[in-house]
């Protein structure tokens, strides 16, 4: 079913409502193989037709396999690329011009497991990697691609490597294992005394209870599972401007600094803000994800950071709205707008806007030509979706690091209150919040009952705030979470489940969404917030929001 859903999703064949939670079962896979083959043939035909239709508008990169950048491919990365996706096409803009990837440390397998940075930061996937691409790689390589490296491309390193069930979180949700020491450590290696204790309630990955890799192992380690973030548009992510301060405006704690320069940093990179700069992130990622033996050379770090700093990614073509970068169109759309946009700017205002859309798509004429009128109607929907994002108020409640920072609980605000950074929709700095994506009772959980067949995919932890500290402001003293987020770094109760928000760009190219991949589609993302905050969106508001998000 998962494979079928893959192709349904790829061709945009409706929203999947199937919750596939059981690990892969090879025997069941075998029984289904013939049926799947027939389905693949049918779906493949649809896929071909879709691709052909898009090819007239989009300079997509040849065959499906060439979408994937394997380490050491040695190809030239053009200055501008377009990649088809179910919502149209993503644009990649490489502002430094064509890059010869041969010998480039971002593209070469510089570690011991065959991976390169590009393995999890694929141009076709907005410099992230989608779950669909992971499944495609599994199918094309029989699971031999270094993407599936045991260290973190598997639910736990000691599971059988060739069994897709061992990689279920990557294949189903696009999640990479992130393993962190417990208790947390400062940059100098000294231990932090956490404000809470942590227990494993359940873990179908078995990694957190594993004698070698778990919380009770010789080197106590906690494993959480997160989506790879975009390695693009990073001038926004790293800008230390509006709101940057020696003490963090969300909790009063000391802000991180660049270890080389001493300058304050945005702390907006990675789900838990554990790395302060692109340079330290490159070093850390090389050691963990790429399993580099020894140290990266300074020149390698320079080249990786330089490349990451010059790449922009955003949707450039939309299946219904057509070109997103036409003259007179919304100024925020397309990768070139990102390349020229101002950084460190709060956009939650009517002077700069988070995503400046202009008025060009607000009221478009009807021409009598069906195709043109359909395009115009979709463009109007996108414009309305922006206004829902920007102006539609609702009660934001019990969201740590937003309700606690001077707005009160609840606060009558809009999406752009939290997602306020100009051009990306992140927070301007110190972007971790608990919007409920990983903490119960809001995080997506499989139903448990005698009649349910699903099993929980993600581990569940019970965190208890110690009696010597105040309880979590909105969740109390005992919190159940799938990922403690920032708290795994800070050790603070109020940081439990707080996740640094991601960019709202290139969304159509990199499903699923949220740090734990719990929203398979943009519609599920919207539905999550509708439930979480009792927003009571109308069906039209939801459709408009999805259309808007799919153009970013």
């Amino acid at each position, binding site marked *: 079913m998962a494979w079928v859903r893959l192709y349904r999703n790829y061709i945009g064949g409706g929203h999947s409502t199937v919750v596939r939670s059981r690990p892969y079962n090879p025997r069941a896979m075998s029984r289904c193989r013939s049926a799947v083959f027939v389905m693949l043939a049918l779906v493949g035909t649809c896929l071909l037709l879709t691709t052909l239709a898009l090819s007239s508008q989009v300079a997509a990169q040849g065959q499906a396999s060439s979408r994937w950048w394997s380490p050491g491919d040695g190809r030239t990365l053009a200055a501008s690329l377009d990649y088809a996706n179910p919502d149209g096409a993503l644009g990649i803009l490489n502002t430094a011009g064509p890059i010869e990837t041969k010998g480039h440390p971002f593209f070469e397998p510089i570690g011991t497991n065959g991976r390169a940075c590009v393995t999890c930061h694929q141009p076709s996937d907005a410099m992230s990697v989608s779950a669909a691409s992971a499944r495609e790689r599994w199918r094309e390589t029989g699971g031999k691609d270094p993407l599936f490296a045991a260290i973190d491309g598997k639910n736990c390193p000691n599971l059988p490597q060739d069994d897709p069930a061992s990689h279920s979180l990557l294949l189903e949700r696009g999640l990479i294992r992130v393993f962190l020491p417990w208790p947390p450590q400062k940059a100098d290696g000294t231990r932090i005394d956490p404000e809470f204790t942590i227990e494993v309630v359940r873990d179908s990955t078995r990694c957190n209870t594993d004698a070698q890799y778990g919380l009770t192992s010789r080197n106590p380690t906690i494993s959480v599972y997160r989506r790879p973030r975009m390695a693009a548009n990073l001038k926004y992510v790293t800008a230390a401007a509006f709101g940057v*301060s020696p*003490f963090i405006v969300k909790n009063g704690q000391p802000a991180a600094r660049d270890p080389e320069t001493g300058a304050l940093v945005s702390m907006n990179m990675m789900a838990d803000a554990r790395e302060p700069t692109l340079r330290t992130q490159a070093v850390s990622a090389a050691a963990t994800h790429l399993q580099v033996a020894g140290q990266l050379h300074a020149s390698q770090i320079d080249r990786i950071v330089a490349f990451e700093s010059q790449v922009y990614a955003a949707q450039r073509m939309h299946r219904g709205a057509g070109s997103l970068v036409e003259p007179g169109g919304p100024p925020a759309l397309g990768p070139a707008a990102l390349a020229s946009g101002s950084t460190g700017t709060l956009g939650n205002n009517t002077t700069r806007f988070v995503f400046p859309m202009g008025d060009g798509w607000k009221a478009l004429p009807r021409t009598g030509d069906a195709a043109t009128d359909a395009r115009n109607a979709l463009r109007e929907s996108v414009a309305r979706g922006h206004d829902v994002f920007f102006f539609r*108020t609702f009660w934001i409640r019990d969201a740590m690091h937003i309700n606690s920072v*001077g707005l*009160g609980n609840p606060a009558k605000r809009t999406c*752009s209150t939290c997602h306020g950074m100009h051009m990306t929709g992140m927070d301007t700095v110190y972007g971790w919040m608990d919007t409920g994506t990983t903490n119960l009772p809001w995080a997506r959980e499989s139903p448990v009952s005698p009649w349910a067949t699903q099993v929980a995919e993600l581990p569940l932890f019970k965190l208890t705030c110690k009696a010597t500290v*105040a309880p979590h402001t909105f969740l109390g003293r005992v919190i159940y979470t799938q990922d403690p987020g920032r708290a795994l770094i800070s050790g603070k109760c109020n940081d439990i489940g707080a996740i640094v928000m991601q960019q709202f760009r290139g969304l159509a190219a990199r499903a699923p969404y949220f740090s734990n991949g719990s929203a398979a589609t943009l519609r599920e993302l919207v539905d999550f917030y509708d439930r979480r905050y009792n927003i009571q969106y109308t069906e039209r508001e939801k459709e408009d929001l999805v259309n808007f998000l799919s153009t970013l």
Partner: protein
Amino acid sequence: MRNRLIALAALVAVSAPQLGGQSPRRVNFVSCPIVQDTATVPCWLSEYEGEQYYLGIQTDISAEFDPPYLGHQALVEGIVSDEPRICGGVVLKPVTVSPLPELDQSCSVIRPAVPQFTVPFAPRPPGPSGGRLAFDPPSSSTADLKPPYGARSFDVFYDVDMLVMGRHAGQLTEIFNYAQKIPGARLKVAAGRGATKLSNGRVLAERPGIAKARAEEIAELFVGAGVSRSAIQSIWRDDPEPADGVDDWRSRRVTVRVEP
């Protein structure tokens, strides 16, 4: 906690002077906050002994008034003003509102907007701003000082039983920046345990140990920001401060003295 305090309130009369007297009428009480929605931003209210008090409105992070939290009771310490009621509430001005740390899910009232309640002063709409913060940021007390820089004390005020929060970031930054101006500066941290005399005559004291926790946290924060640990001296007093019902919120305090 809330039920106990309500029971106490029923037994003990309000001790504050009556409105119109020589001294301002103060009310200090613990109660649930209430949200009164309006056509623009919501008002924050609280009820005590059959009266409804207006605390403030939602604006943005630049406001002096931090709205409290539903899901928590709050300690309200204010002076009854003679201004017209807002959102149906007697205006407390000035007012200090401190959420209590423990959850109380009975504090959950959101009243819908009705035409008779409007907000006369709404510098910030509920959605995006017009391009500026609702209020000008408070001016720094030290930014314009010229050398030589002398000893200077800074007071940091807290919510009941709480440690440093986000709203302290600006003040900590000012202390840090001032200390950075003085080569070899020393920081003397003196922390207290607060207490408030409520209008029902009872005294609400902070938990034992909070003064030590505050002193240690402040020291850790400055060390984390780059101040040498050896330059910081911390003391604390675990006996609650005396409370008389007049600006008792000032007793929930840490004083940081920066010395050359």
